[in-house]
């Protein structure tokens, strides 16, 4: 016997939510492939496939019906996000390890969809960064700067078999990310303006990288327009990144990159619109979202500047994930009839 409400709007499901998020990732993925070569497409496909396979195994092991749960697309999304966070030319087993960390450890050992405390993609990324630091910093260089280019077949061969076309060295096609370059070179006591004059850097951030960031922004705008996410998280995250970077920059203009540099990093935009907005592991109340995202933004920059890792997004998100129950509990909006107004 059914009770009220007896109706639900037709097109509304977890699958639809996830599909829209995936759609939001399309522009950046295409720009990425255009500027850095087709390897990223292979890596995204492989990661998504691996995550779906692992999800199916875990669902089966835990006695859940496989079909409807795979259909929710959440595993595809996790794989896609992980692939976008990793170097595109990662060997297949590295990606697979990341997917295992994400799907098996972060998601299913915590109880599956909706129950996980930590963002699965970020757990995968952070785990890999700690375990395989060298591999995780070999990013493909922007095509415009690379000494050689890998086509789709060559990329696939490298990812799955580990060899490059004859006569090509890995150095010729990879480099450190702009953020990473900046960090290492600052340690070598070079000044900011010196570093930023290098060809790896573009107008605001890294050459090519800044366009990916712009494409994430575009995808994020789509999510906002379709009401998949609210403005709270992106705004608070980006504001906190900008403000924190700005304070450092003002403190020492020669040493700390300005806010635009941090904002134009793809990882910043990815985090603002696609990672920190993960509903499962983020705060849910409006004020809670602001606090959660601002905290993550602040930590992101802090880790980038002071920490020993090339990027701070993953750790900042994971740190804030821990705080979510506390944040939510303390930011309950005023309920109707209890005084106060809309939060």
């Amino acid at each position, binding site marked *: 016997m*059914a009770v009220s409400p*007896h109706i639900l709007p037709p097109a509304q*499901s977890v699958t639809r939510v996830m599909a829209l998020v995936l759609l939001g990732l399309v522009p950046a993925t295409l720009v990425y492939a255009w500027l850095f070569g087709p390897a990223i497409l292979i890596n995204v496909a492989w990661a998504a496939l691996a995550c779906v396979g692992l999800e199916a195994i875990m669902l089966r092991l835990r006695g859940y019906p496989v079909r409807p749960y795979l259909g929710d697309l959440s595993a595809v999304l996790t794989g896609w996000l992980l692939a976008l966070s990793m170097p595109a030319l990662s060997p297949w087993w590295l990606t697979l390890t990341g997917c295992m960390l994400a799907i098996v450890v972060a998601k299913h050992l915590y109880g599956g969809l909706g129950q996980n405390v930590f963002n699965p993609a970020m757990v995968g990324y952070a785990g890999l960064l700690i375990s395989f630091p060298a591999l995780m910093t070999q990013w493909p260089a922007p095509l415009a700067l690379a000494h050689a280019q890998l086509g789709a077949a060559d990329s696939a061969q490298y990812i799955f078999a580990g060899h490059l076309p004859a006569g090509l060295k890995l150095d010729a096609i990879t480099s450190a990310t702009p953020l990473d370059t900046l960090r290492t070179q600052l340690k070598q006591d070079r000044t900011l303006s010196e570093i930023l004059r290098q060809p790896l850097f573009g107008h605001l951030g890294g050459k090519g990288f800044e366009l990916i960031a712009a494409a994430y922004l575009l995808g994020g705008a789509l999510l906002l327009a379709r009401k998949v996410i609210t403005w709270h998280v992106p705004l608070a995250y980006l504001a906190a990144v900008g403000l924190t970077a700005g304070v450092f920059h003002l403190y020492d203009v020669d040493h700390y990159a300005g806010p635009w540099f941090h904002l134009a990093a793809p990882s910043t935009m990815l985090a603002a619109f696609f990672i920190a907005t993960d509903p499962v592991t983020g705060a849910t109340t409006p004020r809670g979202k602001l606090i959660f995202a601002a905290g993550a933004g602040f930590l992101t920059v802090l880790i980038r500047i002071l920490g020993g890792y090339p990027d701070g997004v993953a750790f900042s998100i994971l740190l804030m994930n821990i705080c979510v129950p506390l944040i939510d509990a303390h930011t309950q909006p005023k309920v109707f009839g209890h005084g106060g107004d809309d939060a």
Partner: protein
Amino acid sequence: MRQLFRFHGGVHPPEHKAVSSAAPIVQARLPQRLIVPLRQHIGTSARACVAVGDKVLKGQTIGRAEGYVSAAVHAPTSGTVVAIDMRPVAHPSGLSDLCIVIEADGDDRWIERTLLDLARMDASHVRNRLRDLGLAGLGGAVFPSFIKLNPGATAKVPTLVINGAECEPWITCDDRLMRERAQDILTGARIMATLLHATDILVGVEDNKPEALAALQAAARSLDFPADIVAVPTLYPGGGAKQLIQVLTGKEAPSGGRSTDIGVQCFNVGTAYALARAVQHGEPLMSRIVTVTGAVARPQNYEVLLGTPMAELLEQAGRTSEANGVIMGGPMMGFDIADTAAPVVKATNCLLVKSPKLFPPLPRTMPCIRCGACARACPARLQPQELYWFARAKNFGKTQEYHLFDCIECGCCNYVCPSHLPLVDYYRYAKSEIWAREQEKNAADLARRRHESRVSRLEREKAERAERLAAKAPVKKAQATVPPDSAQAAARKALAAETLARVQAKQAAAAPEPLDPPASS
């Protein structure tokens, strides 16, 4: 133009109003037997004052109001009382209740009616008459009207809101009533305003009912009645009393309090109409407008005698082959009728006949992904996902901390949930559990207090005997305590058990796997 406000959240379900709103109200057929439940309102059941075999006239009181929160019930037509027994009634739990069954004689002969002379009667006398005439809110809550017409300690309620919003999809009984009987509605409103000493009279109608708005405006002009007929935006649940008051006045009725605390009283248009009939014609509340719509051959509004078996009304509207169930009320807040032998009562605003096409089975449930869509849709600004979580974990203390009892069960959260979780079921379950526990606790407390007072009484008596011997002091009695309404407690427990079973069944049907353990395990 009056400045309007908006409430938080809300949803826009498909309206389906045109299905039944085009045709005028028709008189439903007089059934052979009428089944009149003694409890048709919130509060204590009326007490039967006729016996089996008695001849009754139309409008004759057959059940007297009992206790303060109560209202009388009346014979809807003339005939003979043939039974007073338990019958299936319209209740989400499918429980039976005590009903008076009248065999109609077909004459429909009225009892002598006396009009209410407002000019010569004092207000409390008027209210008592209204109680005897069975007036109760016809918007859904069926709260006895005479209580709400008491301005109380403040002696006046400056703002009177007449609710013609009718926000539930499919239902059009208020719409038709406003279109066809606007003058009577406003006459009722005028009487309400007088009793409450209200100075500001607002009639709120959703802007998807332009004909009703026009009819009310015309009626206000011809009656020269200074009511403000306001078109409010169409947004479910804009017809909830709290929401309509918020939209019209910007004020929020305090949690756990009454709207009169903020100087506002709110009545449904149907109630205003019934009040006008009561005062001007001495008619008790024994009929109402019912929308019969959905999968029926002739969807429209009927004026129905209370006590008419639903099945007869549905027959008149024309059965269709695809019909596979009946909802009383709308699709957002209504409930399934287990047995259409149950009669139309004061609360029956709509019979919505389901078909697989109109009401496809709800999709399977998925785990909550904490997307917050529910919170954004909640007009009470609750955190439905947290309430769901705590209710499922049977952490009832926490549900109360998160203001479960401010939930108006509008179903908006449920409606928008991408995981299709039966959220409102969980809230009903949690509420009924809490009530049941409170009753048990009260009973236990009572037993304990009785025991304690007995012990202390014995001791005191001993001491007093000793004292009396010395000083002849007067004896003090232990204070009596009120026994709990055990029948009500039992009903609530039954409801709690039933709700739980339903939640389980629903979850089991949707997810036969070990996921998302239902609230019971």
